[in-house]
């Protein structure tokens, strides 16, 4: 019988076991970090693709385990792999998608109208939690490239610094800054176009 009070092995110890050939030990890392990775992946890819993308991220992590530096934090390293897997997902998605941009529907227009006219903070908060808000966000992000989408989500929507985003994506800070600027400009153009149309109605 397993002793519940026994000290749990650290991530580094488990990784050592996996690298020594104990494949089953990876199950412990999976159980420990799956919630965090699902949360990271869930922010970047569509709901129905989260499980598959997180699966791919863990497989990549397993295959690259020998490159993990012992002095680093495993969860940070795993997050990098998860974010880069999401980026790969979008690159693949944009290459293979048949319908380029989803339609801006009447429901999105109604939601936008409510947001623009809303004055009270309470009802404003209620508006953005609605399904239409998420759909509107997806529609707006759909007009960006995979690179622009990832950098905009990390820097402008999650509020990470350029350095943090660069570390997660494996880009230089200068590259993140340039792409972030371009992405924001492009999104602003899309949103301004929609808002102008709304005001003219």
């Amino acid at each position, binding site marked *: 019988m397993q002793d519940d009070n026994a000290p749990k092995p650290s991530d580094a110890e488990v990784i050592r076991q*996996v*690298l020594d*050939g*104990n*494949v*089953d030990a*990876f*199950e412990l890392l*999976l*159980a420990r970090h*799956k919630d965090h990775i*699902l*949360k990271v*992946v*869930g*922010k970047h890819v569509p*709901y129905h693709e*989260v*499980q598959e993308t*997180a*699966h791919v991220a*863990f*497989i*990549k992590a*397993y*295959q*690259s*385990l*020998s*490159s993990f530096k012992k002095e680093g934090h495993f969860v940070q390293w795993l997050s990098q*792999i998860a974010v880069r897997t999401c980026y790969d997902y979008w690159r693949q998605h944009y290459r293979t998608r048949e319908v380029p941009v989803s339609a801006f529907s009447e429901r999105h227009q109604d939601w*936008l109208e409510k*947001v*623009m006219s809303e004055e009270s903070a309470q009802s*404003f*908060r209620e*508006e*953005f*939690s609605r399904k239409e*808000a*998420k759909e*509107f*966000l997806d529609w*707006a992000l759909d007009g960006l490239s995979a690179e622009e989408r990832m950098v905009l*989500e990390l820097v*402008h*929507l*999650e*509020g990470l610094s350029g350095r943090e985003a660069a570390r997660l994506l*494996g880009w230089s800070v200068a590259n993140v800054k340039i792409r972030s600027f371009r992405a924001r400009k492009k999104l*602003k153009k899309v*949103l*301004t176009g929609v*808002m*102008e149309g709304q*005001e*003219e109605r």
Partner: protein
Amino acid sequence: MKVSRKAQTKLMAALAAAYREKAKIEVDGQWEVGVMRHIRRLGPVHSGGISFEFLERYMWQLASATCLLILILSAALIRGEFIPEYEIAQAFIEDSTRLGLLAYVTP
């Protein structure tokens, strides 16, 4: 019609909030079983080998270095007016050492 800065800020705030509100994904035990089944199928990984992440990370850096090297070599060859066919033809025409085709075929 010009859209006010306030309206733009408001919409960006709404979109950022919608992004943060994305639903948390719950997975059942089957998902973990599926991942572990895949990993067992791959077999053990060993330390010290060239990993997928390593290749992914450095391949593109090497690619850019290779392209740069090709450009530098091409520029050097163009500046040095190195044209092999022209050089060979010139050697035969001038034939300063009485070098003919026969020199290559006769022992």
